[in-house]
């Protein structure tokens, strides 16, 4: 029983950055734009959040800076793909390379550390509501993400005119334009919101779980989020469900590795398991996925 509790407790923790990243990508892609800068944005959020927290001795300032960096990254990508109409694959991958490079450069130049820094910041702690332990003992950011951020995004997309506008510019920007919606501004807003969420997801790793920054800290979580968005068919709750599934398998293999009975199984194989599950789930559910109508297409008036 305690084994399952351990796995579920870890699942919620592991899923937090994925939930933030994938819901950020959902909002972005609903507007018709693919953000392949997600990996870099999460990376920059992790590093600059840590860096600001270290300099100011405040995790709150760290989180705010991370979110601001995410907003900037979203705005920069918007400028490239919305204003200039650059190919979204190229621009997004370029953003990822640029943001990871910048983070590592500042890390080495300002903090003077290369591999395995020993610098630490005070983290957001684990809270135990009503004194409950076990599964309920989670980081505050996890609670906020799963109980507030994701539901609010769902509500925003469905019940606000901004949400309707985002969906409309992603499906049929001509129609949105004729309806009096500013297509470019709407896409900027979607990308900026998305960037903020992605960066917050990265910052969770440095400011909540680890308290320090290490190279390759995101380790492909951004790419997993991209798959989750397709798995979730551009719905925030369905993407979250995918994230929980991934995290469950991830947490499970981590615990299994510690069990005596599983010592004979190569741990690399177990480590690959969540990714395999993601691929299988994606193939099963994503084959008939209907992409937003204006996916990858820059909008120009005829």
């Amino acid at each position, binding site marked *: 029983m305690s084994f399952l509790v351990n796995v579920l407790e870890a699942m919620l923790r592991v899923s937090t950055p994925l939930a933030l990243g994938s819901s950020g990508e959902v909002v972005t892609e609903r507007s018709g734009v693919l953000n392949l800068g997600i990996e870099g944005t999460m990376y920059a959020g992790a590093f600059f959040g840590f860096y600001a927290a270290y300099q100011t001795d405040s995790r709150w300032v760290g989180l705010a800076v991370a979110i601001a960096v995410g907003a900037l990254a979203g705005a920069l990508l918007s400028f490239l793909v919305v204003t200039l109409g650059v190919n979204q694959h190229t621009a997004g991958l370029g953003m990822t390379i640029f943001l990871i490079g910048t983070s590592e450069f500042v890390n080495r130049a300002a903090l003077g550390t290369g591999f395995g820094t020993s610098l630490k910041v005070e983290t957001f702690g684990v809270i135990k509501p009503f004194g409950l332990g076990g599964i309920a003992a989670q980081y505050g950011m996890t609670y906020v993400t799963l109980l507030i951020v994701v539901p609010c995004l769902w509500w925003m997309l469905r019940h606000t*005119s901004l949400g309707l506008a985002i969906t409309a510019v992603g499906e049929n920007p001509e129609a949105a334009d004729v309806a*009096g*919606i500013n297509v470019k501004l709407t896409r900027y807003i979607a990308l900026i919101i998305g960037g903020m969420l992605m960066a917050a997801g990265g910052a969770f790793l440095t400011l909540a779980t680890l308290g320090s920054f290490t190279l390759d800290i995101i380790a492909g979580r951004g790419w997993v989020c991209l798959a989750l968005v397709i798995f979730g068919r551009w719905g925030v709750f369905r993407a979250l469900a995918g994230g929980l599934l991934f995290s469950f398998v991830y947490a499970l293999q981590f615990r299994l590795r510690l069990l005596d009975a599983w010592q004979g199984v190569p741990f690399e194989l177990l480590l690959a398991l969540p990714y395999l599950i993601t691929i299988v789930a994606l193939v099963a559910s994503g084959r008939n996925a209907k992409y937003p109508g204006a996916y990858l297409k820059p909008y120009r008036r005829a």
Partner: protein
Amino acid sequence: MSVSTHVIDEPGPITARLIDISKRFGDVIANDRVCLDVRRGEIVGLLGENGAGKSTLVKVLYGLTLPDEGRIEIDRAPSTIRKPSDAIAAGIGMVTQHFSLVSTMTVVENIILGTSRIIIDRDSARKKIVLLCESLGFGVDPDELVSALSVGQRQRVEILKALYRDCRVLVLDEPTAVLAPQEAETLFKAVRLLANSGIAVILITHKLHEVRKMCQRVTILRRGSCVGTYEVAQHSDDELVELMVGRAVEHANHETVKPGNLVRMSVRNLVVESRGGRILDNVSLEIREREIIGVAGVSGNGQSALVSVLCGLTRPTKGKIEVNGHDLTHGKPMDYLNAGVGRIAEDRHASVIAEMSVAHNIVLERIDGFRKAGAIDEKAISTLVQKLIQQFAIRAAPNDPVSSLSGGNMQKVLLAKVLSREPKVLVIAQPTRGLDVLATREIRNMLAFQRVNGAGILLVSEDLDELLELSDRILVMYEGRIVAEFTNSQFDRNEIGLAMTGSGSR
């Protein structure tokens, strides 16, 4: 808001006015000092061929295009319209030709898109929409997804969208291009109702009978310039066409030649099944020499299947097809081609290779005939194509890529390709859809000429006027069956229209 039925006898004061609008796109002058005004309660026609600048003019009014020169007045006050939201705020609504709806959203969502403040209130929007629907006699379910709606219903949603925003000027860009005759009737009734309630309507069209039916005044554009504004009642159709085209258009004389007795193509009890359902159900017809058989019907009632089965693209499940006495029931497309069947499909963009030249598109199907020492004989191709360009009045050079051609010229390229082989039977679908008056005229004359020369033609068209003008007989298709047949002497627009909806009984 609801639409009152109070009738305004005399059109009121000018609601919107476009003054000396000029717009250039590169070297092309789309609008050259064009003026247009529309009054309260009036339906003004905006008539012109494709490329005359009608759409550009209304895009200026709606803020989709900024004019190089000129100004706009709304209620006699200068107005700056720089984007669609400005136009909406000024009370202008537009129904674009290719609808501007998000098909994955519901009717309500499409209508409130871009209007409501921060939080959406679907319920109160739905109430307002239901009221509007009732006052106009529109049967539209507000909670239906737009993707599930018919073309006519989508158009109603577009009109509702404009009315929901309390528009006082409504622009309709070629609204009947996509509608069946009965649907067009319904639309016109609603438009009339709106005008009577005080809305100023701008009706863009190139169909004269619509102008005659709906408008008192018509503004005519030709190649970007304003020819003038005319009282419709004081001018004949031929005069209006001449104003629009710039010269008189000849009508081919159709009556003098009667169909012969030789059967070119005979189809008996044809059945085509797909996924368990019958797309063609027991279809029999005969096409004789010098005869045009018109096929009428609301799109999607088996016409496409009929065209593709009659040129070997689809295999019939049952039945028999004979061409000039040869059994081609199980023939391949090449067999049909060799038997003298020419085919022009409804989607002309899918029938050409856009990046290839006019010349190569024309000879593509018989490139084997242009070989010289193993290489393509460009000289021989060029000689033939030059001749065909003359003969078919294609306004393009042999080496122009087809993608640079207008729809009319593209269609003529297809006609040149097929007709230059002198087919005995021609199967042609929607030959003039979306084309301007002149190109339409030319193409109809070509078909009439083929008929006189002895070909048998199966003409599938959604344009009833076209069928009435050209056909010797009209067959009406409904749900894969031929439900009615009319011959030349007893054509009745209403009865044909009824049969198209499946409610005729003949």
